C-alpha cells in the first residue's frame, strides 16, 4: 500500500492531494497537463520537497514533514522512469544499466541484468552509447536501468509522452510485460487514456492540483459524474473480458464479459487470456425493440439505469448488461423521441469495427 498526502504551493498553483494506492498493481495518476500529477510523482520520488506531506510505502515512512523526516531520493528506493529517458550520455548502455544495480542495497531482491535485458529486448544495444539509440530504445533502456536498481516502487512520469505514435506502440507492450512478469508496484503518471486502459488496475483522477476520484479503473470508467473522463470523446465503460475463441475465417474474436459476449475484430491473444476493453460510449446505440436485419454484431439486452446530461444536446445513458455497466452517448433528441426513462428495457448495439484501431 502506498499512502500519499501532500500539500505544496507554487506561485499561482496549489497541490493538495491525498490518495492510497493498493500494492502490488499499477496505479495510474491521470489528468490534463498542469494538473500537478508530475509534481506529485516528484514528491514521492523525493526530488521535490513539499511544504507539508506524508508518504508511506508498505509501512516505510519516506516523508513525514510533521515528524521532520525526509528520506533523500537516493535512499527511497523508488525507480523512476522519466519522460526524457535521462540516460547518462558518457556511459554505454550496459554501464547505464549497471549504474543502479551497483548501488542497490545488498540483499535487495530483483531480476538479474540478463533477465531485464531479455525482457526489454535490448541485448543488441549493450555496447552502444545513448546518443546512438532511437527514442523508443532509449526509453526501454531507461526502464531497464530503473528496474535494475532493485526498487520497491516504480515511478513512471509519462514514459511514452515524448515518443511519436510508432515509437509509443513499440514501447507500450514492454511496459505491459514489465507489469506482468515482475509484479512490481507501479505508479504511472499519464494523460493518455489508452495507457491507462492497457496498464492500470487503479486510477487516481486529478484536476487542478486536487484528486477528483480514486478507485478501481472499471468502477471509475463507468461513472458519468466525472467530466474529466465522461466528457472525453473516447469515454466509455471498461470491461474485463476473457478471450473465448477466434474465428479467423470471419475475422472475429469472441470475448466473454460479466454481461455476456462481445464479438470484436480478430485479436492475437490466446483463448483464456484476460484482457480489458474500452467500449466507447459514442459507439453504442440503443433500441427500444429487439432489432432485426442489422449488420451490428453485438446486440445486448440491457436495462437503462440512469440518464445523465453530457455535452449540450447530448445524454449519457447508463446501461446495465448482466453484472456489467455500459455507457452510451446519444443525442438529447433521441432520448425525447424514444421517450427513454430509467428502468426501461433496451437493446444496446455495438458495431464490431468500433473496437478496431488504436486504443481498442
Amino acid at each position, binding site marked *: 500500500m502506498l499512502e500519499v498526502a501532500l500539500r505544496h504551493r507554487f506561485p499561482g498553483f496549489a497541490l493538495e492531494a491525498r490518495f492510497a494506492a493498493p500494492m502490488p498493481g499499477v496505479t495510474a495518476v491521470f489528468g490534463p497537463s498542469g494538473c500537478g500529477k508530475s509534481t506529485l510523482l516528484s514528491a514521492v*520520488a*523525493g*526530488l521535490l520537497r513539499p511544504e507539508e506531506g506524508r508518504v508511506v510505502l508498505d509501512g516505510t515512512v519516506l516523508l513525514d514533514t510533521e515528524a521532520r523526516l525526509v528520506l*533523500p*531520493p*537516493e*535512499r*527511497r*528506493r*523508488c*525507480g*523512476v522512469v*522519466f519522460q*526524457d529517458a*535521462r540516460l*547518462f*550520455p*558518457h*556511459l554505454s548502455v550496459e554501464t547505464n544499466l549497471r*549504474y*543502479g544495480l551497483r*548501488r*542497490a*542495497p545488498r540483499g535487495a531482491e530483483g531480476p538479474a541484468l540478463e533477465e531485464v535485458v531479455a525482457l526489454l529486448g535490448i541485448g543488441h544495444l549493450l555496447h552502444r*552509447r*545513448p*546518443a546512438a539509440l532511437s527514442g523508443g530504445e532509449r526509453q526501454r533502456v531507461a526502464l531497464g*536501468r*530503473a528496474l535494475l*536498481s532493485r526498487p520497491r516502487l516504480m515511478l513512471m512520469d509519462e514514459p511514452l509522452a515524448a515518443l511519436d505514435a510508432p515509437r509509443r506502440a513499440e514501447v507500450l507492450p514492454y511496459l505491459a510485460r514489465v507489469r506482468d512478469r515482475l509484479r512490481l508496484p507501479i505508479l504511472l503518471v499519464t494523460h493518455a487514456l489508452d495507457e491507462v486502459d492497457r496498464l492500470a488496475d487503479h486510477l487516481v483522477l486529478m484536476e487542478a492540483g486536487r484528486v477528483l476520484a480514486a478507485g478501481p479503473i472499471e468502477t471509475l470508467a463507468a461513472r458519468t459524474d466525472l467530466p474529466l473522463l465522461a466528457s472525453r470523446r473516447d469515454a466509455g465503460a471498461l470491461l474485463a473480458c476473457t478471450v473465448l475463441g477466434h474465428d479467423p475465417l470471419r475475422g472475429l474474436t469472441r470475448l466473454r464479459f460479466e454481461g455476456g459476449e462481445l464479438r470484436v475484430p480478430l485479436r492475437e491473444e490466446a483463448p483464456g487470456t484476460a484482457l480489458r476493453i474500452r467500449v466507447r460510449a459514442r459507439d453504442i446505440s440503443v433500441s427500444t425493440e429487439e432489432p432485426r436485419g442489422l449488420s451490428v454484431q453485438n446486440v445486448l439486452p440491457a436495462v437503462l439505469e440512469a440518464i445523465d446530461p453530457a455535452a449540450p444536446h447530448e445524454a449519457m445513458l447508463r446501461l446495465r448488461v448482466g453484472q456489467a455497466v455500459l455507457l452510451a452517448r446519444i443525442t438529447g433528441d433521441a432520448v425525447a423521441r424514444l421517450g427513454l426513462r430509467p428502468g426501461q428495457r433496451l437493446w444496446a448495439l455495438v458495431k464490431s469495427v468500433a473496437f478496431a484501431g488504436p486504443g481498442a
Partner: protein
Amino acid sequence: MLTPEEWGAVRLSLAVALRSVAFGLPPAVLVAWLLARGRFPGRALLDALVHLPLVMPPVVVGWLLLVTFGLRGPVGSLLNDWFGIRLVFTTAGASLATAVMSFPLIVRAVRLSLDAVDPGLEAAARTLGAGPLDRFVTVTLPLIAPGILAGAITAFAAGLGEFGAVITFASNIPGETQTLPLAIYSATQTPGGEATAARLAAVSLALAVTGLLLADLAGRRLALLLGRPVR
C-alpha cells in the same frame, strides 16, 4: 637557435604556467560548482571577487598580492613564520600571481559547461541511489570534463604571458621570476636586444598557437569519448 638564458626563460614560463594551473584548477572547479549549483548568501559577492582579476589592472592585482603575501603582509608573515615559505620575488610567487590572474578563466569555462549539464541527469543518479559525492564524480565531473580541459588549456596559454601581476609581485629576476614576457620586455629595454626579443616573441607565438590547437583537439576527442555530438 636560442641562448641558454633564453631557453631558461621559456622553461621557467612553462613551469610557472603549469604550476598555476595545477594549483588553481581544483579550487576553480569547486568555486564554479558553488556558483552554478549553490544557493547561499554571499554568492554574488563571491562571483564578483572571482572575476575581479579580469577587469582590474594586473598591476593592481600584483600590488594587492604584495600587500597580502608580502613578508609584512597578514598572510605572508604567517607563511614565513610558520612554514618558512616566502612568496615574494620567487618562482612560487610568480606561479601564485599567474594562478590568481587565470583563475576566472577556468571558473568561467567550467561554469559554462556546468550550466550545460542537465540537472535532470543528477536527479536520475539520485533516484538510482547515488549520494552527493558519488553523483559528482560519476555524472557531473565526466560531463564537465571538456569544460575543465578547455579552461585549463586557456589558463595555461594565458599564464605563459602574464606580465603585470608577476612583475609587480615577483619582480623580474632572471632564472627565478623572469618569464617569457618579462624577458622580452627586458630585451627591448637593452641596447642590441632586438634579436632576442624577436626570437622570444616567435616562441611565444608558437606556444600560443600550439596551445589553442591542442585545446581544440583535446576537446573533440573528449566530446567523442563522452558520447556527445562534435560540433
